[in-house]
């Protein structure tokens, strides 16, 4: 298909150069899929634009697909519709001030993002975190992982055709929101983690709710399995769809469940353990098939493992403070702030300048978010603001894998494959 007459047909209203280059890139893309002859008497070849406003693309993802009948010959992704420049914002904020922005990155699992930033800052500024805070963070992270995977499960099954499933997974997510409400006072963007610990201890209410959830959720998971594992329609829509072979997965830089579904047991919790993941037992589920069904199994098993980790954390939860007691490194407790002068001054200093890592220090710290390796690279110039803060976002890398995966698939499967990769545009676009 010639982009020349495509341009005439489309006639973009603005960002003209951008549109032209996108279609040109689509035309230039090298693909191994066999193409028909140049002549196209039946008019089966077309370029299809999906998105950015498309209900099934999980946000503002735009795909330009070159179709041959129902076969996708090649695909190009256009990201950036949700680009807010958070890395630039980070350079102008103190470390603690920046944390609420990370909630809005991967908005399906805010807790992991908070912990990722805080652990990275703690690493570069060598802040000691109390034991209890580590365990509370782990509980929060695993709850966030379940919450994110539940959304993936609901939407992915909905993409595959079963709408009512969405409501059942959201019923469970609702319980998680209530738990987060009791943990940190917010249901969605919870910002509970602090540099040097967490904002407040778990209340008895919250612990009771987590225990209740941990006891009841495995039964729900079993029900989900019962509904899907032997479901002919679900199987046929997912098996051998969006196949990513192990070599290709590593080559194209997939991460998280997408990489583990292709056979590589690369999980940061196991690879370079942070918090106290080296003290709890868990498996890293992997599959070899690399298709959408493999990713389904990996995520389902991950939810089982998360429940296992939370149980161990609740058993081991040590007593003690939840934030480091060093006013130069972390916010003092509210008791100190309200009743002592020093406390108030320290609180003011933390808000005004914040924590200052040594000049010239650089560090990279990654956590295993629900979508994959979520890393923060920080370079300090000795002030309270980072000189450079780079977010290594898993969705961005998985989308690149998606661009590769879509070649040769059917157009009807596009939505299921996107659902299987589970990108979050807030994170991919930064």
């Amino acid at each position, binding site marked *: 298909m010639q982009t020349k007459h495509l341009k005439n047909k489309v006639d973009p209203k603005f960002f003209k150069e951008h549109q032209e280059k996108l279609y040109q890139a689509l035309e230039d893309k090298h693909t191994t899929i066999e193409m028909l002859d140049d002549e196209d008497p039946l008019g089966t070849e077309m370029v299809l634009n999906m998105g950015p406003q498309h209900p099934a693309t999980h946000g503002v993802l735009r795909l330009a697909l070159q179709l041959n009948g129902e076969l996708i010959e090649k695909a190009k992704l256009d990201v950036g519709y949700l680009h807010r420049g958070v890395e630039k914002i980070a350079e102008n904020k103190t470390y603690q001030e920046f944390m609420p922005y990370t909630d809005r990155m991967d908005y399906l699992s805010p807790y992991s993002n908070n912990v990722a930033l805080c652990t990275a800052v703690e690493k570069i500024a060598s802040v000691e975190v109390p034991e209890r805070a580590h365990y509370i963070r782990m509980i929060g992270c695993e709850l966030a992982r379940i919450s994110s995977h539940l959304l993936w499960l609901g939407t992915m099954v909905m993409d595959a055709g079963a709408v009512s499933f969405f409501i059942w997974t959201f019923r469970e997510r609702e319980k998680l929101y209530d738990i987060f409400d009791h943990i940190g006072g917010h249901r969605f963007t919870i910002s509970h983690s602090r540099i040097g610990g967490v904002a407040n201890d778990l209340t008895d209410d919250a612990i009771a709710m987590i225990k209740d959830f941990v006891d009841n959720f495995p039964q729900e998971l079993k029900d989900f399995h019962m509904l899907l594992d032997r479901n002919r329609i679900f199987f046929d829509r997912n098996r051998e769809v969006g196949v990513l072979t192990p070599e290709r997965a590593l080559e194209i830089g997939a991460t998280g469940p997408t990489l583990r579904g292709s056979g590589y047991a690369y999980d940061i919790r196991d690879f370079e353990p942070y918090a106290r993941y080296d003290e709890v037992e868990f498996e890293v589920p992997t599959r070899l098939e690399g298709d959408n069904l493999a990713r389904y199994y990996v995520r389902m098993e991950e939810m089982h493992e998360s429940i296992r980790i939370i149980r161990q954390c609740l058993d081991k939860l040590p007593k003690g403070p939840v934030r480091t007691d060093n006013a130069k490194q972390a916010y003092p407790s509210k008791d100190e702030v309200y009743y002592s002068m020093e406390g108030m001054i320290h609180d003011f200093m933390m808000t005004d300048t914040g924590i200052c890592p040594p000049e010239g220090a650089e560090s990279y710290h990654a956590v295993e978010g629900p979508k994959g*390796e979520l890393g923060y690279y920080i370079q300090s110039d000795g002030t309270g603001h980072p000189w450079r803060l780079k977010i290594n976002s898993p969705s961005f890398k998985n989308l690149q894998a998606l661009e590769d995966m879509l070649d040769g698939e059917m157009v009807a499967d596009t939505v299921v494959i996107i659902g299987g990769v589970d990108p979050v545009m807030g994170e991919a676009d930064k």
Partner: protein
Amino acid sequence: MDLELSETLQKVVDGLSSEFSETFIGVYQSTGDTFVRVEAEAIVDICRYLKNEQHFIYLTDIFGIDRFTSEERFEVVYDLVSLRDRERLFIKVRLPEENPTVESITDVWKSASWMEREVFDMFGIKFENHPDFRRIYMPEDFDYYPLRKEFPLLGIPGSIELPNTTPDTE
């Protein structure tokens, strides 16, 4: 500064400094991470060597840094992971302020494609022999590089064409 390299990383660094004695500049550590500085022109060979000989088979990230100095203003950092040895290694190259250009490593890792596009989009660092070299977040019509230090936080008014907010009165 004393280095506390693990056994495998020591081997990698030794291998690099002997294989690439001309282009290997130095190695340093900061808060437990190991950074190797090399000359920009050798980056493809070094990456290929690390991938094929030292098992750094996974490329997790590429990012740029604006040092805002008059000499060698830009830095590009490659974040490599060895799944076998459970090690992480950062390779750094420095580039001049005028026309910063470095060879693309998409031939070694396909995944470098989007990451290099992001570095170009944010810093204006050009990657040669890249198969699909476009901006990634900002539209092509945008003329600035937002993560450079001189770019104002509030943006530049009028630099980006926005859709008409009242479509009927076009």
